[in-house]
């Protein structure tokens, strides 16, 4: 089980958090103008990266805040944590 450094509460057990999948998939502002294919892309298609992935987590049993994590999905190493709306770290 990971230790996750919640940007609002500090380091906590993974069991306090809920994963929210790939980050930076922005909900289209004008869904009605998308084709079915484009909508399906938003709704279901995922990069599902093996390696460094940007993803969303929620401190659901803590401050209830959503934030982002950079994690290597091949070994579960967390590389960085940043708040919603902040620019993802580069590199």
């Amino acid at each position, binding site marked *: 089980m990971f230790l996750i450094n919640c940007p609002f509460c500090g380091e906590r057990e993974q069991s306090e958090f809920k994963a929210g999948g790939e980050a930076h998939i922005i909900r289209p502002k004008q869904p009605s103008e998308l084709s079915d294919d484009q*909508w399906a892309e938003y709704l279901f298609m995922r990069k599902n990266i093996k390696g460094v992935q940007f993803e969303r987590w929620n401190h659901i049993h803590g401050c209830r805040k959503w934030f982002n994590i950079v994690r290597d999905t091949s070994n579960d190493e967390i590389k960085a944590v940043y708040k919603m709306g902040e620019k993802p770290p580069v590199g």
Partner: protein
Amino acid sequence: MTKNLRVKTSKFIDETYRISFKFNGKLYYGFKGDTLASALLANNVHLVGRSFKYHRPRGIMTAGSEEPNAIVQLHNNTSRTEPNVRATEIEIYEGLEASSQNCWPSVSFDIGGINNILSPLLPAGFYYKTFMWPASFWEKYEYFIRKSAGLGKSPTVPDPDIYEHRYIHCDVLVIGAGISGIMAAKTAAKNGLRTLLIEEKSYLGGSTIYQNSDHFKINNQTSGSWLEKEINEIKKIKNLEIKTRTSVAAYHGYNFLLARENLTDHLPIEKKENKTRHRLLKIRAKKVITATGSLERPLIFDNNDRPGILLSSAIKKYADLFGVSCGEKNIFFTNNDSAYETAISLIQKGINVKAIIDNREEIESKLIYEVEKNNVEVYKGYTVTNTFGYRRINKISIMQLSKDGQKVIGSKKELSCDCLGISGGWTPAVHLFTQSGGKLKFREEDQVFIPNTYSSDQLSVGACNGDFTIDLILSNVTKSLKHFFNLKHIEYENTEVLSSFNKSKRNIWLLPSDKILGKTKSFVDYQNDATAKDIKLALREGFKSIEHVKRYTTTGMGTDQGKLGNMHALGIISETAEAKMGELGTTTFRPPYTPLTFGTLVGRNVGEYFDIFRKTPIHEWHVENNAEFENVGQWKRAWYYPKNNEDMHQAVQRESKAARESVGILDASTLGKIDIQGTDASEFLNRVYTNAWSKLNIGKCRYGLMLNEDGMVYDDGVTTRLGENHYIMTTTTGGAANVLSKLEDYLQTEWPELDVYLTSVTDHFATVSVCGPNSKKIITNVIPDLDLSDKSFPHMSFKNAKIGNIHCRVMRISFTGEHSYEINVQANYGRSVWEKCMEAGKDFNITPYGTETMHLLRAEKGFIIVGQDTDATMTPIDLQMDWIVSKKKYDFIGKRSLYRSDTMREDRKQLVGLLTENPNEVLEEGAQIVADINKSPIEMLGHVTSSYFSPNLNKSIALGVVRGGKNMMGKKLIIPMEKKKINVIVTDPVFLDKENKRLNA
């Protein structure tokens, strides 16, 4: 047979404290400090069990958790029975009863032993090649295979013991309290770090603590006495916690470890009662030091499995620690100096050592010299080729090894013995290290895998890091601790060490024999009876990878997880396939290190603590009034209230009638409630519900339907506008947490610009729902000041009110179609408000009703229950609720998905009403619906989602989903049950009061 082989008083054994125990029904005695294994050996009992496949007699082989053979059933046929307990680990206590497993009728005469004779027909994987004829017979073969497999017996009654969990956070965790672990723990603790030292045995000091030889000295004392002083010192350190009888089971990522602290297994039965048996420690350590030592390797030769064959280090431990001699005519077979250490210990105690067979040719070693001095014959460059004796070894044959070690040469010689100690050198215990994600490297010179790269902040020290002798331990452990803790100085820096151990070893994975391999039984995995020829067979058949060989031959799949034999399996593969050991890799060491009781892993979360038990503030009233309860999520909800021996049907019919004819009362407190505030609250609701919210006036309520982004109905409920920027949303009982979580998600991640705050207030309010034509009279009585006129307080509106001094929110909303009110009051006033309503309703036969009646009443009105009438495939259009989907709104969650080719199809499954031809016939919920019963394959159009006998309509009614159902009004369909077909007519889902007259009645 019975002899006393207790040879010399040991300071580790309390000979003043005699303990009686039973093994296979016979009474024996041992002393406090004994394990079952040491006590049996002291009584000259070697034969303890039978092997898995061939049922060969097996004895005690080791003195630790790596034991493959001596596994027993404790307390057979009692509630504290336990299968597969290692005799080498269990400490004896008064009243201990153990018995052999996997044998019938007895361990010394076992019918299953016939498998040993049939063994030529039972090579590795034989079952894949046979039992295929006749085709239908596998289950019959399987019956017998299953019966003969397995080891001990599962308990058959619940466990009387208690288990618990504890979280520990520390700076440094040291695993293993041998010499390296003691040095590590002392260094960490002395430097001010909060340190936890864990040891699986009942004592500290590992194998050094009973080392009492002049050949191994530290600062001019025997290494045992030097270590004893160190131990006495660390026991005084305040920031060092020591836990014995505690074994680390799993080492997960992020330095998260699980350990089992054994609290009562060594206590007499009567002292086990009402105490915690095991405690699971969940440890988060900033740093971890693994000092788990090493395991001695056996040697692989023909018939290397007989009772009386033990690891040389085990014989030493039994002698030095327990004061027990494993035999009276001892022979050792070794490829390194370890067996000589043991021999010297035995000689010191006056135990006979007959001979030592050493694979190695001439070598200079002080230990060998000392042994030879004591007139022990040493056969150098020899190997054991076979052993004899069925229930106990009585003889071995030996031959000389060829120069390359691949063949035997010369003539055969036989030596009699009653105990054979074997040593194939040492294997670092890297199991926990690799579990943590660490990577190993292979050290060619002595053919061992040692830690190479770490995956977290940790260090391996001592024998588990490949340093097997005290000279290397003192120098290397000191160096690495200094570096690990970044210290300028460390106390062990100038320690003087003397070790007479010659580190040479002649490693031959599979020792040659004068017989062809096919005729030998050289066991690699003792417990599973996997032999060297099995491994070669697997390779011959194309199973090349170590994982394939393991699975095909079952090597390493026993309860010892191959702690003894895995390296040899790898070695034999590498030699046979001419592959390099380092490149083959090892099999994965899977947690736990030693098997872990389910009860320990579960802790206190059993019985009533299995899951949270949520009850409403009015719960006790329901209990007192004889309610039956239904589980809804984690809630217990009153289901119905039987009176005078009514069954559920009768109670529900009575409750339903009462609610429609006079007044009913329901505890609706479990509904989810979310308080929504902020200047953008209306806009937020616009986006999350399918309908429009901007124009809802303050004080008004509105029903809303929430979709998933895929367009499917997710939740529903009534939301009330309490103020300009303030709403209270209700959700379904089961959906509350998920809805809140989903709303927070959108709010924080998609629409952070919205000024909205969400708070769960489900537990803060109790909700009493009063419904029926007389509901108004009840509310008037309970809240006399409230103007309940339709003009002032119409359907779908809300008012703040007071009952005495208690503030409450009253909503006039209805889930039954009746004129009804919901009173929301701070939770702890819930019961008193409920009772006030009951009191006020006395004259009106006010009837409490449960969820079943609620379901019936709403079905009469065709109101859906999300999750019952919908699954995750229903859109609002499918539910014939087009009216609630705003066409004007630009967007809401799930809107786009409603316009995909499949969601727009006209012939989707749609919600309809169903009436049976026979009005007394009640459909089964879940029953499938078809149009043409003769069509093949039969086409299922949908299913019955809700079905009741309506006492108010005096007929059976049902809701269902039917493909194209919207356009089937009046059509006849069929419900094909197992033994009959039921005809139904498709109708509108609203069965009662289509005009909604009752709402204002």
